[in-house]
Every structure is written in C-alpha cells, then in structure tokens.
C-alpha cells in the first residue's frame, strides 16, 4: 500500500529528511540527527509536522454528555478555549486512545487522536452513537483535510509573536485561540508533546505549506531546527508522556498507567467499575540505566532472576546524557530507587527505577 503523505511532504524531501513509514504515513524520522534535533527543542526550538494526527469533531446538543460517558476526565470543567488531556475507554476500562479535547464552545468539541488510531476511534465513536439514545449528535472526521504543525521549545514564543502578533504570548498553557490569519481560519494552542513550552497550529491542508514557510523564515533567527519523529519520541520519553502502543493500549488500566489524575471519581463513565475493581498488579515507572545500553520495548525486567516486568519505551537522552526508558513493573518492585536487571540480547544490565518525568517539567 502506498504511504499517505502530508501536505508538507515535499518540504521534508527538500530538506533532505530521512523519510520512514510511520503507521502508514511517509514522515521524517530525522532531518540531520535525532540527537541534535532533540537538544535544539530544549535549548531553542524545533518544528514538527504532526499532520498525521487525527482530528475528529463531536458536535451537537448531546456532544458533551456523549463524550463525558466515554472518557474518565471531566470535560464539563473546561471552558471554551481550553483543551484537556483525556482518554477514550472501552467497556473493560481499557484505553481505546489518549487524546486532547478542544472545547470550541457551542456544543462543539475537537478530539485530536493518534494517527494509528484515527480510523479505529472514528468507527468506534459512530458505533457508540448508534448504541446511545443521543439524537442531537454529529461526528465528523476532518483528519484528511487538517494539518498540524507543532513548534516546540523555549524560543517558540518569539517565533510565534513575529508571525501572529505580540498577543500570542498571553495564550496560557492548555489554552487555544481560533483566529483568522490571511483570511484563513486556524487554531493555535499552547501545548505539545515534548515537555517544553510550545504551540500547535491546526489549519487546512492547502494553507499548511505557507504556515510552514513562515515559521521557518522567522524561526531562523531563533535557532529553529526542523525536527522529526525520532526527536519527538526522545522528547516525549524525557517528559514521561505515554505513547499509544507502548505504555497504553486496549488492555491498559489507566490507574496502572499512572493516569489516575485523568480518572475522576465523581463522574460516571464507561468501564469505571472495571477500573476501580481491578487490583493494580503493576505500575508504569521510569528507569535510568546504570550502564550504556538502550532497553527497548518488550525487553524483560528481572529481580533476583525472576521476571517482574517489561520495557515499554527506551532511548538515549541527549539532554540528560543518560539511557532512560519507561516500563511496567510489578507493584512490589516499583518503588523509586529500586534496582532491577534488564535483559538486552542475552546480557543483563542494571537499571534504577525512577519517576518518569525525567526532565522535571510540567
């Protein structure tokens, strides 16, 4: 099957990107060096093409009630202009996907979901609508026509000011604004997947190359570096963010994934009883290798020769100069400071359990 291309594909090719297949999309894994790109995002800023992400609108009088029934976080506390991290849960309390919900006001919500899950989530939402009694509800998949550019790093705000005006710096974290820019409707949120200050810009596909060029032009003076999926993965691991297919999947209980903060006791939602009744046997933790070695997804973790867990993500962190990762470990062994052995190609390497927010930011 031919790979899907974002409207910025030609830009990536022009910039000598190393293009790979990422869940069916032809996207840059790196332009020059994953490590350089991941460092730039923490010191200046980096620009990512995240157009593969899915954008699904849920609107109508019943939209809020419908979404509330499928998610553990309380969307009713968000106001127009706020976005919220949330989960879509299945009947067993497992995670269908993690997502950002943008409250657009007037019973309209934008759900930004993982590229690998867009079709699954869209079909699932339609099924859930059919099963429900909600009549006043529209589910619209705009993923095919929407591009997403993500500008991340401490200098990102200065680039944004030059393009969109000084007012953009007043946009608070996890807030967004809808504006008309060169007569085109766009959404800008202060958010990202790196643990740095940053902005995400949603626009129509046809408009994306122009926005890309503007960011590149004004970003030059701020040390902007084009950044690929490789750097994006390093940065999200450094920030301790879960990635679907690694730390979370259809079987994951949000509580064992340390996503209890997303799971509100006061509201009712799908799978709630299942989540609360299941005994938590394992915990998501972070780890730092005591030696040089990358522990990758699926590698077994042992204590006194007995398997007690499994790696879900691992990388070399250029910002910490350490080999880090995330894993699930039996609760009894999951305390911060414990030492474990990770089996990498027939050898055992020592690692120390840590908090998974490695860079210590929000």
């Amino acid at each position, binding site marked *: 099957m031919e790979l899907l291309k974002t409207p910025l594909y030609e830009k990536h090719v022009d910039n000598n990107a*190393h293009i790979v297949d990422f869940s069916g999309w032809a996207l840059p*894994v*790196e332009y020059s*060096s*994953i*490590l350089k790109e991941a460092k730039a995002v923490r010191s200046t800023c980096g620009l990512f093409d995240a157009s593969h992400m899915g954008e699904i609108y849920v609107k109508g009088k019943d939209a809020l009630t419908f979404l509330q029934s499928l998610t553990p976080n309380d969307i009713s506390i968000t106001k127009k202009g706020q976005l919220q991290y949330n989960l879509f849960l299945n009947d067993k309390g497992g995670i269908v996907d993690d997502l950002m919900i943008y409250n657009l006001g007037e019973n309209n919500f934008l759900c930004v979901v993982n590229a690998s899950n867009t079709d699954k989530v869209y079909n699932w939402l339609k099924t859930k609508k059919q099963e429900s009694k909600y009549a006043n509800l529209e589910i619209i998949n705009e993923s095919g026509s929407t591009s997403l550019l993500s500008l991340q790093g401490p200098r990102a705000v200065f680039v944004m000011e030059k393009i969109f005006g000084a007012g953009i710096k007043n946009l608070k974290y996890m807030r967004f604004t809808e504006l008309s820019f060169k007569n085109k409707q766009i959404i800008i949120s202060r958010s990202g997947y790196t643990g740095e200050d940053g902005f995400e810009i949603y626009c129509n596909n046809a408009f994306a190359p122009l926005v890309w060029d503007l960011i590149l032009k004004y970003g030059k003076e701020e040390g902007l570096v084009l950044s690929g999926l*490789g750097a994006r993965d*390093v940065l999200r691991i450094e920030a301790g963010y879960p990635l679907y297919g690694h730390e979370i999947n259809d079987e994951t209980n949000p509580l064992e994934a340390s996503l209890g903060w997303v799971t509100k006791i006061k509201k009712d939602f799908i799978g709630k009883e299942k989540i609360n009744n299941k005994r938590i046997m394992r915990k998501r933790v972070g780890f730092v290798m005591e030696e*040089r*070695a*990358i522990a*990758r997804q699926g590698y077994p973790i042992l204590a006194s020769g007995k398997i007690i867990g499994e790696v879900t993500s691992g*990388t*070399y962190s250029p910002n910490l100069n350490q*080999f880090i990762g995330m894993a699930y470990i039996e609760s009894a062994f999951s305390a911060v400071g414990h030492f474990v052995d990770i089996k990498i*190609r027939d050898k055992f390497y020592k690692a120390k359990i840590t908090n998974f927010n490695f860079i210590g930011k929000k």
Partner: protein
Amino acid sequence: MATLKFSKTHEWAKIDANIAVIGISDHAQKALGDIVFIELPKIGAKLKANAQFGTIESTKAASELYSPLSGEVTEINKELLNNPQWVNESPFERGWMIKIKVENSNEPSSLMDEAVYKEFAAKEAH
C-alpha cells in the same frame, strides 16, 4: 600499502600484511543515524567471516556487526565504547572497531573494492 575492502553488510576492512582493521562504512553510519552504543568482542575471540562480531545501536535501532574476514581479534577500540559518536564523525579513522589477524589470505579477494562498493551502496539506497 594497506588495501581497503568492503562487505555487502557495509563493514570495511583495511588490510595491511596479515592484520585487518575493521569498521563500518560512511554509507552505513548515515543510514543508522546517531550511534549511541557499541558492543565489541574480547581480545582473542576467533571470528568467522560473515558471522556476527558485535552490536551497534543508533537512536533508531539495534543492528548486528558482521566480520568481513575470519581471524583472531588482536585489539579493540576501547575508547570507542565511550565515544560511539566517533562512528558518525569519522567512520574510517577514529571510528575503527577491531583489529584481527587474518586467517586466510585468499579471503580479502572475495570482498568489494571501494569503487564497486560505492555503486553497490548507491543501488541499495534506492
């Protein structure tokens, strides 16, 4: 005069008399990306041509290193273990990995010369 030869798995061997220095090609380091970990054999290890002698990991993936020639390891680049980025920066000089005592003097002729290898690598990139 040392001769430079290449294997189909993108290792190079610089052969001088019966000693061969071994590393990976510029093409290989570019394809792998930032190298962050290297595992090498012990001195004295007996290597077989085309058999695995170590592991190299970039931020993207782990790959096996294959010996282009048969022979006994006489030296390893110990400093490289703590400076794996040298493979990216200088694949033919500071990025050398091991030295072996070549067992069979006919074996090098089965490897590619630089010009042939370059064509081979260019084709593979497409």
